[in-house]
């Protein structure tokens, strides 16, 4: 056991003596849930013969596109431990070569095929680095991150939202035919759980109260929503399928607050819109009918390490022909990306990064004071504690990129010394 394990969760000694929280495993999952599909890159980011390195839940992974197929392999050369993606080197379609001494691994099995500098080396054929299951769907490269022995990997659809059935005009699913999928991803400086919990939080609308999209669409958005009946929060437990929970805003199960009399504040906007949020393992959000009816927003909060997550904001809409695709593209470029993915979601990113210090250094998981609408958050934590496929063990160190050059620093130091 390493030291990261010993402090996971923090606080008093646990064990069976003090009643553990029902969501204890969630508190252990600072590095994320393993044995799950996470988005790694947009397919368009992987141009031919280029190796891209990503870090998901502490797993350093090199991705390479060959003849339309993406391969995922451990991004650490067995020899001297450098990340191969730092200087991509590929000499054949079925291998990846480390830029340092030329250790060359098979993309399919990770076995050392040759060493550029030592072609008769006895290590050849004996040494192996691990590979990862990978699937590219709807323009997104997904990697199954976790234990190599967790095989076969469950289908990708088990780690995506459910198909919506209780809606007269259900939003499209990412894996449907004839969908238009666009989005962005960016690094956010907070633990991934703060990302997930911010996404479906029924009480956080204050940060969106004066956002551009609300004003521009004259959207009647409440100040908050309180679950008031048993069916307000639906547990999703599909056999061999998605697990998660849904805020049932379509039922009369929530009370929406449109004003707060104590401080004389009212919700803006006049036009009613319907949207609904749900959250799924291993940690992704679906917002139905957002930014406009008929569209769906997917958000992933893929853990990088225990302090940062890759925030994926993806819009999914229907487009069956070129004209509809052009219209979808127009909407995305001129409306969705600037107003929804950037302006609106920037406020969520601000909130998550603002929570980081409290949850990382000030015992936030024990010291937080949750209120009535946080029932949704508690249910998510319990659902996540039950349905995860494993807690990612901490990595020894957080991934850092090496400095490209130190010359500038040296020169500066000399100048200072001379002065």
């Amino acid at each position, binding site marked *: 056991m390493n*030291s990261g394990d010993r402090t996971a969760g923090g606080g*008093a000694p*646990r064990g*069976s*003596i003090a009643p553990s929280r*029902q969501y204890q495993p969630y508190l252990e999952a600072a590095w994320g849930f393993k044995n799950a599909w996470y988005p790694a890159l947009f397919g368009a980011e992987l141009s031919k013969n280029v190796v891209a390195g990503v870090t998901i839940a502490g797993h350093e992974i090199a991705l390479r596109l060959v003849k339309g197929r993406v391969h995922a392999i451990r991004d650490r050369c067995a020899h001297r431990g450098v990340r191969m993606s730092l200087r991509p080197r590929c000499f054949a379609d079925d291998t990846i070569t480390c830029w340092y001494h030329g250790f060359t691994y098979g993309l399919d099995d990770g076995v050392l095929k040759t060493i550029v500098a030592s072609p008769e080396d*006895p290590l050849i054929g004996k040494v192996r680095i691990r590979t990862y299951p990978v699937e590219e769907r709807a323009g997104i490269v997904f990697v199954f991150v976790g234990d190599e022995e967790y095989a076969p990997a469950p289908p990708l659809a088990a780690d995506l939202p459910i198909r919506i059935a209780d809606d007269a005009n259900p939003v499209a699913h990412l894996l449907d035919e004839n969908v238009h999928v666009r989005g962005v991803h960016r690094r956010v400086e907070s633990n991934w759980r703060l990302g997930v919990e911010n996404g479906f939080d029924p009480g956080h609308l204050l940060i969106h109260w004066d956002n551009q999209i609300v004003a521009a669409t004259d959207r009647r958005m409440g100040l908050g929503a309180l679950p008031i009946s048993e069916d307000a*929060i639906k547990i999703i437990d599909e056999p061999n399928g998605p697990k998660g929970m849904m805020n049932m805003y379509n039922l009369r199960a929530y009370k929406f607050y449109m004003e707060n009399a104590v401080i004389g504040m009212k919700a803006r906007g006049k036009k009613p819109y319907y949207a609904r949020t749900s959250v799924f393992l291993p940690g992704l959000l679906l917002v139905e009918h957002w930014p406009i009816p008929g569209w769906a927003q997917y958000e992933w909060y893929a853990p990088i390490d225990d302090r940062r997550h890759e925030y994926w904001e993806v819009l999914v809409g229907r487009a069956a022909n070129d004209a509809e695709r052009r219209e979808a593209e127009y909407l995305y470029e001129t409306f969705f990306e600037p107003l929804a993915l950037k302006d609106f979601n920037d406020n969520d990113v601000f909130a998550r990064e603002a929570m980081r210090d409290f949850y990382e250094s000030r015992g936030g998981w024990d010291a937080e004071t949750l209120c009535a609408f946080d029932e949704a958050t*508690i249910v998510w934590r319990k659902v996540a504690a039950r349905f995860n496929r494993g807690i990612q063990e901490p990595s020894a160190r957080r991934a850092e990129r090496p400095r490209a050059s130190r010359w500038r620093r040296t020169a500066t130091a000399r100048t200072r010394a001379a002065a």
Partner: protein
Amino acid sequence: MAADGDSADARGGVSVTLRFEDGAERRIVVAPGQFVLDAALAQGVPLIHQCRSGNCSTCVATLIEGESATAPGRPVALLASEAAAGRRLLCVSYAHAPSVIREHYPATPIDAAAAPRRFSATLGALARPNPKVAIFTLAVADETFAFASGQYVRIRIPHTDEWRSYSMASAAHELPAMTFIVKLIAGGAMSEYLLRAARPGDRLEIEGPRGAFVLRRSRGQHVFVAGGTGLAPILSMLDAIRRRPGMRPPMLPSFGCSRDAEFFARDEIELRRWWMPELRAILSAGRSDGADDGLRRGNPVDALDAARSTRPAPPPICAARPR
């Protein structure tokens, strides 16, 4: 001890004595064409090694007597002068005659499991779920302490020379904290200490870990049977399964107490049912004190047989109250 020729086995292997830095010796038989390291590993002597191809020099050792040579034509990471001085890379070296080979490290670390160490521990919380059971936690400061679920430690009762053995009820991922479940016995040394003297922060000496009753890996259903405080190693194993790599197997613990008034750890078992959909639990009591407690009647083995045909509903989520 000198190498002797009389222990060559029927396949024509030769006897090799491995002499460790601390004086410990292990005798192995190395067959023709077999590397010394491979023979040692196969015969349960876990020599330190890494590349197994003559490159890394991790397995370097010194030939004291006899004859051992590197496989012909194999370039190895040894200088000619080192080879002349008797250095051998055991991963690529044969033994051609009975030999003595000196390892440059003690046997103690590789025998650690057989040689328990003593540690200082601090008493954390102490609880009594019922008059006959105490549960307490200890924190071990030493980061080198490790154990496998199912193992136990000996605990010295403070201010005495009495030692008692208890299985850990928590798993290694909760270290430095460990949980113990103790059956309270009137007049028992540990019971008297826990009931009368114990205070959080007390220093206790522990020795271990000990025991070979540990989990073996398999994908089939894991059935556990425990009565009373015998639940401790089972809880530890269930927690270890939750955190170990790979897919979880189906688990079926059957836990019973002699009377339902003495039943304990219901919350602990319910939590684990929640955390692991693969876990079914069978709870039983030998005798009823009249309450409708949902426990099966009989001992845990009988209850296991009776319960195997039924499939209980999943536990409730209890969403209404935070935490």
